[in-house]
């Protein structure tokens, strides 16, 4: 006996439904995170190898070879990655969102959560790992250029990558999820646009460091722009509330029936919440 579920897929009694039908690609998420971590650990190793040896004098030919080439690579790679992913997402968008089946929407929400996880993971490398490393370097080594060994990885590698992934999550949400395509979500916009603004704010940072703040104090006002735009990451709390609202008010009642809350609190089940 065959039946058609709400996702529009045909199932037979012989077909075994995957237990994790709602999230078919967590492996891809962990793979993406592993690739991101590997890329940054390799660049961290490169910093260790070439930082003190070739990264102290920007006028030296070795600096041009070992560091400026990494700078060009980071920018070119992230630009190509962004254009590729965004183009793919836009060209393959759902053109009939009105008739999206509830189960398919659940799957897409979990994919969205997976992309957000990769985005936040990339923000971690930029905002924590390489950002405080920048303090360790610049409070010890005197700078003679904006393109220092720590900046090339932080500002021109880690920052562009999380911007690419942030916009990817935004484009995915707008082209595949009803709650983000019908109207524009301000929390999601802030969660992506706010951290993005750290990059333009870099202009102020470098301008200040070039003209008056030659020494490095991390708590100086010249860095407060990074702080304020960093606060907007809190808007992911709003994104969480949007998704939970969608589950509770529409998807769960539609898929599991109006009494779905009783199922969640069934104490007889070992999976009871």
């Amino acid at each position, binding site marked *: 006996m065959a039946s058609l579920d709400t996702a529009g897929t045909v199932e037979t009694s012989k077909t075994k439904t995957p237990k994790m039908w709602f999230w078919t690609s967590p492996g891809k998420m962990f793979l993406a995170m592993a690739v991101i971590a590997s890329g940054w650990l390799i660049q961290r190793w490169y910093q260790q190898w070439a930082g003190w040896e070739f990264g102290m004098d920007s006028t030296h030919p070795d600096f041009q070879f070992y560091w400026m080439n990494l700078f060009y690579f980071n920018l070119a790679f992230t630009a190509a990655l962004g254009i590729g992913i965004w183009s793919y997402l836009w060209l393959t968008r759902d053109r009939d969102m009105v008739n999206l089946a509830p189960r398919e929407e659940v799957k897409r929400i979990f994919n969205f959560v997976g992309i957000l996880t990769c985005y936040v993971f990339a923000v971690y490398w930029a905002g924590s790992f390489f950002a405080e490393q920048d303090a360790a370097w610049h409070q010890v080594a005197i700078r003679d250029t904006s393109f220092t060994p720590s900046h090339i990885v932080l500002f021109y590698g880690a920052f562009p990558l999380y911007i690419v992934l942030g916009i990817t999550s935004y484009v995915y949400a707008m082209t595949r999820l009803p709650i983000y395509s019908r109207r524009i979500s301000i929390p999601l916009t802030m969660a992506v646009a706010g951290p993005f603004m750290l990059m333009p704010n870099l202009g102020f940072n470098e301008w200040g460091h070039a003209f008056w703040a030659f020494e490095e104090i991390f708590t100086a006002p010249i860095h407060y722009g990074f702080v304020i735009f960093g606060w907007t990451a809190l808007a992911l709390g709003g994104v969480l509330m949007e998704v939970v609202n969608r589950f509770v008010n529409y998807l769960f009642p*539609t898929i599991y029936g109006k009494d779905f809350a009783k199922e969640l609190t069934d104490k007889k089940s070992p999976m009871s919440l």
Partner: protein
Amino acid sequence: MAVSESGSDSKLGSGADLRFLSRIFDFAVALIVLMLLMAAFHVHAMLTIGDWDFWVDWKDERFWVVITPVLLITFPAAFQYIFWENFRLPFAATLCLLALVLAEWITRVTAFNMWAYMPFSMVWPATLIPGAIVLDLVLMLTGNMLMTAIFGGMAFGLMFYPGNWPMLAAFMQPVDVHGSLMSVADQIGYTYTRTSTPEYLRIINRGTLRTFGGSAAPVSAFFSAFLCIIMYMIWWQIGKFFCKLITIPNVLRTHMGYGQEEKPNEGDLPLKA
């Protein structure tokens, strides 16, 4: 397979399936929250109180004691709103500070020690976990933002210095160096030169700092407690703001199959504001 009115078959629509889905969603969100805190809270911390936290000789009794709790009660207050008001979870503050300390230790090891070659005795981060536990406890027991701000916020500020004293005490011991009296922390700071950092000790150790008989810290802690109460209330509201479900019209909606005009119910329920 039987198909219910809601479109779910007997297996996919079961309570166990729903509980499993909810549990996986919880894990995914937990991963995002942890990394988000390690990124955003760490950026906030390093650029507002970072220098005091980086170096042992910056951990003075005047500004370190005041500034650190005041600026680090921010994210805990905002996350307490998100976690408590929406999910009744009473561990937001502790989670924030745990994530922060974890992120800090990663960079103190990989950057400050392994790349800038500073000893751990010089770059260990402060902890606010004791105050965070009390903050969570007060919220859990009272369930009231105002009470938490007054009693929890005050405790958060007051407990900072005694909470760190077991780590700091050894570095506050006096030492005679070529006829000059200084603390062990000062001596470490003089020994490991930070070429590109202003000398904090020459800025701070002047005026009437010693007029409390060497015990300026309690006065600073009380001032910090006062400011923490105010800061907690401000950031509770900021957390509330970032969770607001605000949307604006999407001019690109026709590209996803929607009509030009918005309809009251386009296949789902409206978001709960």
